[in-house]
């Protein structure tokens, strides 16, 4: 139904925040905000839900710990328990201190790398990905807010944006 959207350009992050709050107060839904740098508190003002990336990272860390433990238990204890310099290879726990550095590193490795890959997948980032930037200036010094509109409310929203310091407002046909 919303076949058109408004692109409003702001020159300052404080003004942008004000406009976001004003629109949210009037229950208009903001589709997207493009910024040249992270604006502190923008996610809160927009009402975005908290990221769960940290939770995935914790779980990936547990996977890494399990992989390291299983790997070394199989190689050093089950498969070929050699006597290497008198280290006790009778059971995993007896020789565990020697395995801890690897267990630690594997935990960190899995937690870090799988979390980063999760981030890429969730935010749809990869090489040769086509840029979704609606206006090149938003990577330098301008802030752009995108709002879905229809014929009934386009005028009202444009007025709110104008009152709250938008320097340019454009009506765009959605492709």
């Amino acid at each position, binding site marked *: 139904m919303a076949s058109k959207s408004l692109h409003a350009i702001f020159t300052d992050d404080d003004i942008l925040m004000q406009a976001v709050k004003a629109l949210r107060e009037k229950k208009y839904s903001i589709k997207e905000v493009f910024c040249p740098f992270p604006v502190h508190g923008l996610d809160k003002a927009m009402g975005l839900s908290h990221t769960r990336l*940290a939770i995935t990272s914790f779980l990936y860390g547990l996977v890494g710990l399990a992989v390291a433990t299983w790997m070394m238990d199989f190689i050093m204890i089950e498969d070929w328990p050699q006597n290497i310099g008198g280290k006790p290879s009778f059971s995993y726990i007896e020789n565990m*201190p020697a395995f801890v550095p690897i267990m630690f590193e594997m935990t960190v490795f899995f937690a870090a790398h799988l979390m980063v890959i999760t981030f890429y997948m969730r935010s749809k980032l990869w090489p040769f990905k086509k840029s979704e930037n609606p206006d090149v200036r938003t990577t330098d010094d301008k802030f752009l807010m995108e709002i879905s509109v229809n014929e009934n409310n386009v005028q009202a929203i444009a007025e709110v944006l104008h009152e709250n310091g938008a320097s340019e407002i454009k009506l765009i046909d959605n492709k």
Partner: protein
Amino acid sequence: MYTMSSKIKSFSLILIVVGAIGLAYSFIDAPSSVEEVKEMLHSDGASHEGESVAMEANSSSSSDAHGDDEHAEHIYHQLQNKPWAAIYVPALFLFLISLGVFVFYALQNASQAGWSPVLFRVMEGISSYLVPGGIIVYLLLILSSLHLNHLFVWMDPEVVAHDEIIQNKVAYLNTPFFLIRAFIYLAGWILFSKLIIKNSRKMDEGFDLRLHKRNFKLSAGFLVFFIVTESMMSWDWIMSIDTHWFSTLFGWFVLASILVSAVTTIAIVTIYLKGKGYLEHVNNSHIHDLGKFMMGFSIFWAYLWFSQFLLIWYSNIPEEVTYYAQRLEDYPVLFFSTVILNWVLPMLILINSDFKRINWIIVFAGVIILLGHYLNFFVMIMPGTVGESWTIGIPEISSILLILGVFIFTVFKALAKAPLTVQHGAFLEESKHFHY
């Protein structure tokens, strides 16, 4: 202004009285002669068999009797040491907590932290235990050097005469030098704390850049002095108990234990005072920051604990490994429970960002951490002083109560001496509006 509630006052006085009675009882209860220990050992053995042959001490064969004599004398020394070691552990632990709090305070000054000035008075209050705590520790060291106990074997001239390893260390480990060193550490720490806290109190009358800069320089100077003396203090007061053993990262290991217990104590006292309605500017972001420090230092402690253990376990050199062999044999549960209490549980509890803002979770984790680090000191000191005769019974618990009572009384009395928030400071406004 905070005034010490009568509840806290009577609570701490009860702790002191109960602890003192318990400790006095344990000194009286300690065996006063080898004969007594022999009797005790026999009645122990007899009760296992269900007979009462306690008085038949002389009926065994001569070679057996000789072994029995040595064993009984060994046990006798351990049991004699027990109340002394029991009071030494909490006296040292709580003194080092207050020292750690002051170190943390100096760190905040020297790093010009913007989040912590609203907590300065809490830290100053806990640091006030430096004086009574330092006196108690120094008194115990003097009593040890007067041969009233055998906490430090190298203080016994008879032992040194037959021990070449200790003879080679006498240049460092001799009683006068030991006491002079201890005096220098204590005097230096107390002097720095008095100076810095005095300047901070003076600043309540009005902001003075000169005072601010002076405290900055004093804090930086204290941190340099501290890191040197802390390292030596850990060799003197803790490592020298196991005189034949040495470890290079021991000072750091003790430092990690001190710092994490100190930050935990700050957090608990802050939450208590906040709960009573003082400390209006403290919000859950401050608690969150303390929680992060608790978790970070817990992991730091575990890192050093494991580094020390792994290197000695891996190379397995006899003169080093006896330290852990004795602990694994006589203290297996305590030895491993310190790792669980000081690393596993704090890490799992405090890893969640939301949890670090919830007061009862911080207090819960804090109690675990403090208990764990008491046990850490216990496992550092007890094996070299009482060996396999350790218990956590009347001597240990009553000395914890005694020292804890003195600690609580001193800290809350000191907290009542000045406004609970510093009145002026370069970063005070930032700290009041600190938000994470």
